[in-house]
């Protein structure tokens, strides 16, 4: 292992912290121990590690975090982060702690069973036992191992059979006004057969101190079920984030994911879909709008295990200032997955000569009767479009905003929830200084 002294320091420091908090002989503690051992063995990814080559996560954590201060209770008012017009089940976490007074469940228990993950584990809930930590592989990724060993709050959401539910929105708010914040959290969503649901995870933050979150969500989508998943990351410039969202899809299920990254210091999103059935349809959309010295790294994996499935991915990014966008999309088509159709596209615009983009679309195919393609482009503002608008008397700034808004619009157009679409449109417009 090519771990430099500093990086192994931070890894062992974190390992000690995890070990200190580890409570033995409670439900799930053996799993935590196992994950800790794996974390110790793997260590945080070194600089040269292929999967993290553009996101030096170990170095950034080493440099910017002490990991010493206990996570503080916050007094922040989450009202400004909520989506006002959305009729949904609202669950709020502030600095990793469940905030009961700000949460509101409107769906009856006959539709959605919501409980804390720890309680569900303690109660030996068979669904939890069947799926918890079974899909998010902690044996290969140190950050997932860290999460599995050290998560402190989490939710278990169980959508019962043949239900169409109101959306569920989970707010992850970090308040770093009083000092450094580090949270490790985890969710499990199980959508039973024939159901349809929408899960929104919204990440916001305030305060000038650095804050980091390590968040893992596992989603199981059973036969004929549909899950819509939104990740809205609108943090401030001191937010460091690691996210893994792992989907496990069965026959004829459908998943739509939408990822919006609008800010943050270092955002690493791992979105992984395992298509373990036939007739599955999966759509992934992503938009990252970066400026200043933001770094957003989207790694996606679509793993086609069985025949006759379809996946489609479109990620778009606009990089301004000193920002850096990273995209890595993997499509695996296993030997049994004949008649797979898989498509992937990544489009980027660089607005300044200090902004960079690293993209790596990757196809790995072991079946012959397939149609797969990927494409990616990187460029600047479409000069012809700009010229067209300028000749019609539109100012440079407005024309620029129009072109960028149209570029981002392709992602927004795919959002199928009207209120959310409206809200996201507002966020994006504001971000792109839309003034027309």
């Amino acid at each position, binding site marked *: 292992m090519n771990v430099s002294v500093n990086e192994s320091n931070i890894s062992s420091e974190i390992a000690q912290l995890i070990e200190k908090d580890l409570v033995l002989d409670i439900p799930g503690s053996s799993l935590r121990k196992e994950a800790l051992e794996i974390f110790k063995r793997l260590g945080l990814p070194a600089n040269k590690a*292929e999967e993290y080559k553009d996101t030096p996560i170990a170095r950034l954590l080493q440099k910017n975090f002490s990991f010493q201060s206990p996570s503080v209770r916050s007094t922040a008012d989450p009202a400004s982060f909520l989506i006002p017009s959305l009729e949904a089940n609202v669950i709020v976490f502030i600095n990793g702690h469940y905030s009961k007074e700000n949460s509101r469940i409107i769906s009856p228990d006959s539709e959605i069973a919501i409980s804390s993950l720890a309680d569900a584990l303690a109660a030996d809930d068979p669904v939890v036992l069947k799926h918890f930590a079974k899909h998010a592989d902690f044996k290969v990724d140190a950050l997932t191992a860290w999460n599995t060993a050290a998560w402190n709050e989490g939710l278990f959401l169980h959508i019962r059979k043949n239900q169409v539910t109101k959306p569920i929105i989970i707010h992850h708010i970090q308040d770093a006004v009083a000092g450094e914040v580090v949270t490790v959290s985890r969710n499990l969503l199980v959508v039973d057969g024939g159901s349809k649901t929408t899960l929104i995870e919204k990440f916001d933050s305030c305060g000038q101190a650095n804050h980091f979150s390590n968040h893992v969500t596992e989603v199981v989508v059973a036969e004929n079920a549909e899950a819509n998943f939104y990740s809205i990351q609108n943090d401030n410039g001191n937010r460091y984030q690691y996210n893994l969202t792992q989907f496990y899809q069965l026959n004829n299920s459908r998943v739509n994911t939408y990822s919006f990254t609008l800010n943050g210091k270092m955002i690493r999103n791992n979105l992984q879909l395992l298509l373990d059935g036939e007739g599955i349809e999966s759509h992934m959309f992503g938009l990252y709008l970066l400026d200043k010295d933001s770094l957003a790294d989207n790694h996606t994996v679509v793993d086609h295990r069985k025949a006759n499935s379809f996946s489609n991915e479109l990620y778009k990014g606009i990089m301004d200032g000193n920002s850096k966008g990273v995209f890595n999309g993997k499509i695996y*088509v296993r*030997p049994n997955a*004949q008649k797979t159709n898989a498509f992937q596209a990544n489009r*980027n615009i*660089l*607005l*300044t*000569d200090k*902004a*960079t*983009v*690293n*993209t*790596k*679309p*990757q*196809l*790995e*195919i*072991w*079946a*012959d*009767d*397939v*149609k*797969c*393609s*990927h*494409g*990616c*482009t*990187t*460029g*600047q503002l479409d000069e012809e479009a700009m010229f067209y608008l300028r000749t019609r008397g539109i100012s440079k700034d407005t024309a620029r905003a129009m072109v960028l808004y149209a570029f981002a619009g392709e992602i927004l157009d795919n959002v199928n929830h009207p209120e959310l679409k409206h809200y996201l449109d507002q966020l994006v417009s504001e971000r792109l200084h839309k003034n027309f």
Partner: protein
Amino acid sequence: MNKDNQVLEELTSKEYEHGWTIDIETDSAPKGLNEGIIRFISAKKNEPEWLLEWRLKAYRQWTKMTEPKWPNVTYPPIDYQDLIYYSAPKQKVQPKNLEDVDPELIKTFEKLGISLTEQKRLTGVAVDAVIDSVSVATTYKTTLAELGIIFCSFSEAVKEHPELVKKYMGSVVPVNDNYFAALNSAVFTDGSFCYIPKGVRCPMELSTYFRINAANTGQFERTLIVADEGSYVSYLEGCTAPMRDENQLHAAVVEIYAMKDAQVKYSTVQNWYPGDKHGKGGIYNFVTKRGLCFGDGSKISWTQVETGSAITWKYPSCILKGDNSMGEFYSVAVTNNYQQADTGTKMIHIGKNTKSRIVSKGISAGHSQNSYRGQVKIMKRAENARNFSQCDSLLMGDKCGAHTFPYIDVENNSARIEHEATTSKIGEDQIFYCLQRGIDEESAVALIVNGYAKEVLNQLPMEFAVEAQKLLALTLEGSVG
């Protein structure tokens, strides 16, 4: 389906056509690698002191390096101490003309279809024939010499043009560039050297024919092409190798140095022994090829048809340093049986208005694994850089794999980069269309594959295009349904 399997069976069970061994007395070094062996090679070749030092420096670097593990290929570990690093056909005197050459060697070339005399008379191709690491004869030297073009074996160049060799060797691929390049720098036995002077357009295609003979010999070729201002050269490299049960290592280095407005076109047809249909034997082809567009307006173009080798690890690259320079990469890589190929290119844009184009066509059949790995890097200073990449894969059969690993790193906002890749099999509708018009299935497949690879094959010089098409047809016809 049955018919296809039958045809496939016939083809894949076909023995390697160019597999035979001719007994030529060889003068070999003992097995193993150490400083002594390097001194032995250097002494054998009567090399000057500076070259020995250069080799030893490379060897010391190599001992500190580790074999790359990132390629998408698997093979048993290579015991570098179990290889012979020098083997030269034994000759008493240096041949002055063809009659002096060992008749056994001439026979080898005749079997390969590149008889020197015939080449000389009919095709007008100057051939620098290499058998087991030592150049045996060079033709058309006089014609080239009149234009000031130097085209000779590497060892000859070391003796006669040391100043050129000294200046340019290692300038594009430094000794410590990678594991296999370092190994090559330490133990290379021979190769080709080519220098095109200012403003000269080389009137013929320059060509080397490589051939591995004697068992247990790793072949370490080194090619250096220097194109001076405003010159043009088209260089061909072709390979066939005899059948062996033991794996043979081939770690070559090719360096191209293009000055202002120079153009170099480098074409390869690679048909080393791929191993038998159970994946036994075959050549390990670990090659470092790189071109430097040093001067403004220079252009380097790589074209390759890869059909052979058990394992191919090869990334012909272009460093686009000069403003307005241009790099091209055209590749057809075919893998069958248990072959593994991890090949692609790197385009490093440094200068302003640099352009690159990548067209890669992979075809995998049998149990083979075929990977495209490429990098397009636009540096900060590379204003208005432009890249277009297309890498398509064709799968035949459900036991093979096709993989694409493109890296696109952009640090300049005026760059325009496009990349697209597709993977599919031959469409049933395409086959149906041909069948309807009375074309049998096998010809239909050949037609479609040829059409699929056409964009690349078109880039090859005429002499090569024929051979390449034959090779494609031989490896693939009928292997799909």
